[in-house]
């Protein structure tokens, strides 16, 4: 009975201990939040750069032009430079952004789209899959006409970053994030 009454009506000493614990826990949680939230935000807010081979004769694309390129409706930068699409493998954030913003398709729809595109003889090949941003960086600088989406913080020197709607990654209003 004494035990229950102590729980229902705690003494001042117990109350103080609980408050101390509670205030420490709250302070700790605030600290954790302060530290973790920017990390979480950083993961989701970094812009995705549109990167092309340095010799590609283009510096700026509108969103509809980016879409046209990635839909395979535009297949040549110039008569001698075919577009070579590079796209990250599933689960990569860059792929999520491309599917959501550019294609506006689910993973299943994206796969079906390219099967149909080749079946219709509108394109001879599907986008090539790259497994890391390092690989994307390397290939986009090695293959003439290549274009890829790379997390802007992972873009390496030598790659050519395109403006999209006149804006570079990091600038206000950049549409790919």
């Amino acid at each position, binding site marked *: 009975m004494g035990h229950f009454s102590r729980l229902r009506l705690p003494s001042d000493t117990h109350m103080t201990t609980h408050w101390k614990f509670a205030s420490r826990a709250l302070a700790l949680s605030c600290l954790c939040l302060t530290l973790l939230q920017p990390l979480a935000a950083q993961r989701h807010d970094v812009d995705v750069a549109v990167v092309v081979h340095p010799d590609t004769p283009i510096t700026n694309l509108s969103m509809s032009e980016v879409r046209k390129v990635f839909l395979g*409706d535009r297949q040549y930068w110039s008569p001698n430079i075919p577009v070579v699409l590079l796209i990250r493998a599933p689960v990569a954030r860059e792929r999520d952004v491309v599917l959501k913003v550019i294609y506006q398709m689910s993973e299943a*729809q994206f796969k079906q789209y390219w099967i149909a595109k080749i*079946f219709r003889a509108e394109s001879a*090949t599907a986008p*090539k899959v790259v497994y890391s941003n390092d690989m994307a960086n*390397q290939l986009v600088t090695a293959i003439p006409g290549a274009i890829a989406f790379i997390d802007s913080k992972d873009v390496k020197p030598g790659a050519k970053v395109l403006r999209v709607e006149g804006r570079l990654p990091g600038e206000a209003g950049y549409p790919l994030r």
Partner: protein
Amino acid sequence: MGSRCLLSLLFALTTSMLLAQSPASAPPTEPTLQSLLDRIQQLENRINQLEDRERRQEAAPAGTPLAPETTTPAPVTTPAAVPGPTASHEDHFSTGEIRDTERRFPSLQIRGFGDVDFSATDQKGSVSGFNLGQLVLHLASPLSEKVSYFGEISFTAQPTSYELSVERSIIRYDYNDYFKLSFGKYHTPLGYWNTAFHHGAWLQTTITRPEMIQFGGTFIPTHFVGVEAEGNIPSGGLGLGYNVGLGNGRSSILSKSGDSGDSNDNRSWVANLYARPTRFYGLQLGASVYRDKLTPQPGRNFEEWITAADVVWTKEKPEFLAEYANVHHRDVLTLNTWDSQAFYVQLAYRLPWQQSKWKPYYRYEYIHKPEDDPTLVNVLDLSGSTFGVRYDITNYAAFKGEYRNSRHGVNEPRVNGAFFQTAFTF
């Protein structure tokens, strides 16, 4: 103790809830189970490929080049695709992976389509049962940066055997996006459906094509043998494109194209203009004209003019397809004319639940033909509705169930039917 646990729980919940809020405003990156499984499968395939390559490399004599992973003949690699010697060893991929992304010529890709069907109707004399639909093989092979080959072969079950048919066989030279020239056998670029879904039942939402463009039908020539030019038209946001073709036209059997030669000394031609406005991503508008001279019997000639128009919204929420065609025939001898019309309207919607696997649809189709048109003798008037649902079992297989209510011919009773299909690609 209980309070401590409660506070710890509160702390954990608060932290996780607040952290969970941040992806809601940003693009979600949490992988779905399916995408993770896909990824695992992909990585496993990759490991298998690399192990295979290693084994082959060990088995092959020193200096022998590696075989391509994809398919068939000996590849010729474009030198430009090989990365320079400056490639850093810090990169987390091997030269083998780079080789995978090089273009090789020829590089044959084969994809198959198949379907198995069941049908039952209340039409007098009809028999219910299963049938093996078409087995279709599609071939695509870039022969160089500018030249590609596309082929489509179908195997259709017949009472005593299988009918093999070359549905498409095209070799195409791409000059640029505005001009691509090809030769061979095509699906006639007349309207939308005929060049969008071809023989791949898995690609189309419904079990069958609309009757106006049925394979083996005569209302519209579905195949075309000859030469075709296609490409985009510089038009800014309008997104214009074209197809122009010159060919043999229909053979004396109107449902067939002149694969082995023209049935008369007269070329047919087709022109198709379409728009994909960039402002309305998913919308396509098209108009087509087809001109031919038919000789169904020696000494009987008919001029044929087909005009068609289509409006489609290709996104699946909703999907909207509508086509209209008018077929005009004129007897060269008597100058009698006949006009036949057909259209269909199809509406579908990909439901958001259960990983968007369900897609209900409805189609109405209509055909009217003058009774005395001597050319379209096998075409019957049609007024019919189709209600159905498609369920995507996986990314590469679907199950479809349909109820159809239609009337073929004038003053004929309406026929009800239930149809089922599993369609897949492999």
